[in-house]
Each structure stands twice: as structure tokens, then as C-alpha cells.
């Protein structure tokens, strides 16, 4: 079965139809409220044709280009996280019954879901969320029910946003693993590569043409263009400098002075996994439901203990978030928790730049050592 072929641009509609006839709902990028987001789409008409995103610290704007390419934007406001680790998830329903309490599991019916448009950083983040939610002693059945229904169609980035730094984290821009199909979008069509049995079966049903050397050359050239990025984290395990920085609270004051502790960075981060558990009852108290909701380490309640809040100041909150993401993750999940998508930079209302902060911290730690 073929691994690689050329799909004319107008034939992308047939990919949607094939998926839908197989019973998949198709989730893809679309423009909504001035940003590209993942939504369930009926057809290619919902795709953001010709739209590109201009991203910078605290800045995201869409611009209409004359071309009709669907995937020339770089980053969605959210990655895949809300589709698996949903912002709100009922966990358990309790009822008062004759003779006591009855507890019922929550089972969701999740349709087979094909997601189109994912980038290398999104897939890397998915692998990290899989690690957290599925590969521990207690796999989360709700994440699992959604995860097992996924078919993943990724797109190689041909541009990078000013906020991207996936090259330095080793997670992009080229898709190397985790997808069923990978697309490179050119003006006339797509270089489609199948990287799983399901992907190959799907590719075989599409009206593809043989791939020309020119298609490959053009795609590879564009991929190379995406590798040019304005930001880079130090390409190494950052535990050593960050644990040194951790021990000196003064180093965190300058960023804490700007940080609003709003938690936007954690909300858009595709790997942040914290949640709180709420209890909800209807007015007639006929049942009580435990509901999981996204939480972030920027909330006081996150570190609440009887009598006090462990992390009350912006210094402690931002330090927790950054050191966890880039240092403690190594100890917990054998790699950094950052895939270089840059969303925390774009969606920070005051434009705090994680890359800039890390470089500053590393420099100041080093300067401190030299002084000693």
C-alpha cells in the first residue's frame, strides 16, 4: 500500500467525505472570534482558507491573504487539550437511595474523531498528556475514552510564528511521529504521507496522483523555512540552572512584578494538566455530581491547606509554573513539559515571554556564581 502521494487541493473535500462516511466527526481549524480554533467541521468550507496568524508576546491577529491555502496559519489558540482533557468533566454521580448512597460512574459516548491540522508541537503535547493521564497507576477513563477514538491528520508547518521555539525543544516543526496522515500543503495540493495502517488505508481511497520531485523539493524547502525561528530555549536539560534560580527568590521578582497571576499561560499550555474537583447538586438535590475543571497553579486555591496558602505571591506562583514545566517535568515524566508552541507567550495579557525569562534566569544564576 502506498505511503506517499499527491492530493490535489480541491480533493481535500473528498478526505472529509471519506472520513464522514466512515463515521468520523471531523474536527479541524476554523476562524472564530479572531483566532483559529479547533471545531467540528461539516466540510472544507469551514477551514480558514488564506488566513495567517500574526503572533507576538501578548498579540494574536489574523490576516487574510490572497492565496487559498487552508493551513498557512501557525498556531491555534488551543491545542488538542480541550478535546481530551475537557475543561469540564463529570467524574461521578451520587444519589441518595433507600438504605444509603449509590455511586455511578460517568461513561461518555465519544464518536470516532478525526482531527485535521495538528502541528508537530501539538502531537508532542498529546504524547505528554497521554503519559500523564494514561500511563500512571490510575489511568483516567474519561481522557482514555476520548483518546482511543482519535485519528490524527497532521500538517507540517511551513512558517513559524515569532513566538515559536519548537526547534529548540526538539518537538518540531516537522511531524515525525504520532499522526496517521501528514500533509504538506502547496498551492496546487498536498503531499500526503501515511504513517499508520489506518492512514495508508485512507490514503488508498483518495483521488491522489503520483508525487513529483518538484512537490517534494518545494515542500522540503518550505519546511526548512519554518525551522528559522526567532526564539530558542537553551537546548539542554534546564534542571541545574533552574533549581539554582529556584533557591533565590529575588531572581523572580522582576517577572512577578509584571505577572497578573491570571493563569492564561496554563490554560493555553497544551501540557498543563492540573484540575480541581467540584461538587454540584441541582436545586432539588436529587443527585450530586463530582465535576473536574481545569485549574492552574496561579490560583490561591491550588495550594490551599487548612490555615494557609502555600503559594500566595506572584513570585511563588510563577516560579512554580516555570520550574515545574521546564525542570520538575524531567523528574516526573523524563522530559521537559514544554513543546515550544509559544502559546503562553502569545496569550499572556502582559506579554511575558518564557524564553526570555529562562535566558535571564540562566544568565543571572551564572553571574551569581561568578561573583562567588
Amino acid at each position, binding site marked *: 500500500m502506498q505511503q506517499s502521494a499527491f492530493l490535489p487541493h480541491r480533493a481535500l473535500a473528498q478526505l472529509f467525505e471519506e472520513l464522514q462516511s466512515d463515521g468520523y466527526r471531523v474536527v479541524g481549524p476554523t476562524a472564530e472570534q479572531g483566532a483559529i480554533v479547533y471545531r467540528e467541521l461539516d466540510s472544507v468550507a469551514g477551514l480558514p482558507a488564506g488566513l495567517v496568524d500574526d503572533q507576538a508576546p501578548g498579540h494574536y491577529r489574523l490576516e487574510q491573504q490572497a492565496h487559498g491555502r487552508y493551513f498557512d496559519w501557525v498556531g491555534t489558540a488551543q491545542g488538542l487539550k480541550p478535546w481530551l482533557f475537557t475543561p469540564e468533566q463529570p467524574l461521578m454521580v451520587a444519589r*441518595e437511595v433507600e438504605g444509603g448512597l449509590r*455511586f455511578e460512574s*460517568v461513561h461518555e459516548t465519544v464518536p470516532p474523531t478525526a482531527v485535521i491540522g495538528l502541528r508537530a508541537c501539538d502531537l508532542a503535547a498529546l504524547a505528554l498528556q497521554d503519559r500523564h493521564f494514561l500511563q*500512571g497507576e490510575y489511568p483516567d*477513563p474519561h481522557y482514555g475514552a476520548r483518546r482511543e477514538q482519535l485519528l490524527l491528520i497532521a500538517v507540517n508547518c511551513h512558517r513559524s510564528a515569532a513566538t515559536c521555539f519548537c526547534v529548540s525543544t526538539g518537538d518540531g516543526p516537522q511531524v515525525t511521529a504520532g499522526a496517521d496522515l501528514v500533509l504538506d500543503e502547496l498551492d496546487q495540493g498536498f503531499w500526503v504521507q501515511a504513517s499508520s495502517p489506518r492512514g495508508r488505508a485512507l490514503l488508498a481511497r483518495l483521488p491522489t496522483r503520483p508525487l513529483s520531485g518538484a512537490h517534494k523539493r518545494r515542500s522540503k524547502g518550505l519546511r526548512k523555512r519554518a525551522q528559522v525561528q526567532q526564539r530558542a530555549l537553551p537546548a539542554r536539560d534546564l534542571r541545574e540552572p533552574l533549581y539554582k534560580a529556584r533557591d533565590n527568590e529575588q531572581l523572580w521578582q522582576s517577572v512577578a512584578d509584571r505577572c497578573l497571576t491570571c493563569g492564561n499561560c496554563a490554560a493555553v499550555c497544551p501540557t498543563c494538566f492540573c484540575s480541581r474537583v467540584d461538587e454540584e*447538586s441541582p436545586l432539588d438535590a436529587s443527585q450530586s455530581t463530582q465535576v473536574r475543571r481545569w485549574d492552574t497553579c496561579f490560583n490561591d*486555591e491550588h495550594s490551599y491547606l487548612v490555615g494557609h496558602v502555600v503559594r500566595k505571591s506572584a513570585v511563588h506562583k510563577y516560579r512554580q509554573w516555570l520550574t515545574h514545566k521546564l525542570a*520538575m517535568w524531567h*523528574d*516526573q515524566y523524563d522530559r521537559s513539559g514544554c513543546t515550544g508552541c509559544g502559546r503562553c507567550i502569545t496569550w499572556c495579557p502582559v506579554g511575558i515571554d518564557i524564553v526570555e525569562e529562562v535566558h535571564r534566569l540562566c544568565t543571572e544564576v551564572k553571574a551569581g556564581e561568578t561573583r562567588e
Partner: protein
Amino acid sequence: MNDPWLPQQAVVIDKVMETPDVATLSLRLADPVAHERFHFDCGQFNMLYLYGLGEVPISIMDMQQGLVQHTIRAVGRISRKLVALEPGANLGLRGPYGNSWPIKQARGRDLVFITAGLGCAPVIAAIRRAIATRPDYHRLVIMQGVKHRDDLLWQEQYERWREVPDCQVLLSASEEKQAHFAWSLGMVTSLIDKAEFDVNNCTVMMCGPEPMIRASLRGLAEAGVGLENCFVSLERNMQCAIGLCGHCQMGTPFICREGPIFRVPDVQQWFLLEGY
């Protein structure tokens, strides 16, 4: 996939008010098979659920006459209602979770227990286990600090422990002004000087407010105890108990998953810092 979020129904069989705001509840799981199968190691905890209110982590104090015992202080929204439960009341229970005190590994050594406040609950289980298997250990030293003498739970139990061979019970009250024959004035940490144990062959188990534990660690280090022989039961805002919600991370470890009991050198880089 098993549903780790699902509690089991439990019933309050017995309740003892230890003080006006502390109760010990004895629970039985409604499902006899599950009840029979329930086993805990001292130091572990359960998630207790109240209808319409939610869940809290509570350490397991003991199992007596086949019943799971929790000693609970009424301090928060849910614990106040737990303390108000009466025999016959229904609740939910998930657990047990977490690791346990190293009492098996400590055989042949002196055991030193340091607790303050109601922090003693998880340690009490270990003390009782040690006394039940007394010949396995050399000396036992029990240090307990409270604010006022009247705050001490289970006074009679401490008096009985004084009668156990080679068992030293040291009590301190930090906010009392008048001396009392069996009590010291001051913090529990001031008791370390009076404790008689082999600093080179001991296992220390601690639970209580974090400032008290930090002070105890300083006292122990000054006494010459290697911190690798010191264990501490830690607390953070555990909401799921199964390593998913992220609230109980103290630096690297998830307290519900790798803890709640830690060998001190494994957590001191976090524990000694404010904000983790």
C-alpha cells in the same frame, strides 16, 4: 478500565468525640466483600466523600474490630460535617492510597516518633503497630507537642505507653505557663535533648505542622541523627488522590502518589523552601 473515581459506600458504625471538635469515626464498607478485602498499611489515607459536599483526604488511624478508623478535626467545610456524622450515617470512601511508614524496615532499631497537634493521627497507627510487635525494636521514643495540655488526645493511651518496656514518652505544651510533672513547657522540638535513643541506629517518623518539622530536623541534625533515617508524612491540597489533579505536587513528587511519607533527603530541597 477500572473507574478510579468511584467511591464505595461506607457506614459509620461507631463514633467517639475525643474533644469538642475531634471525632474518631469507625467505618464499615457496605459491600461485605469489599470490607473483607480492605487492608491498609499505617501511614496511608482514604478519600472520604459526603453527599453534596465532596471529598477530603483523611489518614487512616487504625483498624479495630474490623472497622476502619479515622480521627478527624473539624476545620473545613467537609471535615466539620464529617465530625458531625452519627452512627448509621452513610458516606463514600476511596482508598487506601499512598505509601506507608517504614516500620518493617526499621526492625532492630530504635524508633523515634515526633508529632504535634492532630498530626499525630497517621503516626499513632505506626506507634500502635510498633507496640504490638514490641520485641522487633530496641527503644521507643514518643514525643508529642500540643499547645495546651488539654489538647492532648488519648491521654490514657500515652500513660499506657509509659508502661511499655524501654518506651520513653515525652510531652510538651507550648502555651502553658505552669510546670506539670509529666510535661515540658515549650515546643516539641525542645524534647529532642531529653530523648534517649541511639542516634546511630534509629528511625525517626514525624508528622505535624511544617514549621515544627523543619525545627525538628534542625534539632535532630544537631543531635547527630542522619537525615536519611528520618521520615516525614507530608500534606498538600490533595483533590484526587490518584496522581491526576496536580494539586499535591511538592516540587517533583506528587504527595498522593510517591508519598505521603518521604525519607527526608528525598524532599528536603522542596520542603525547606517556602512556596513549594
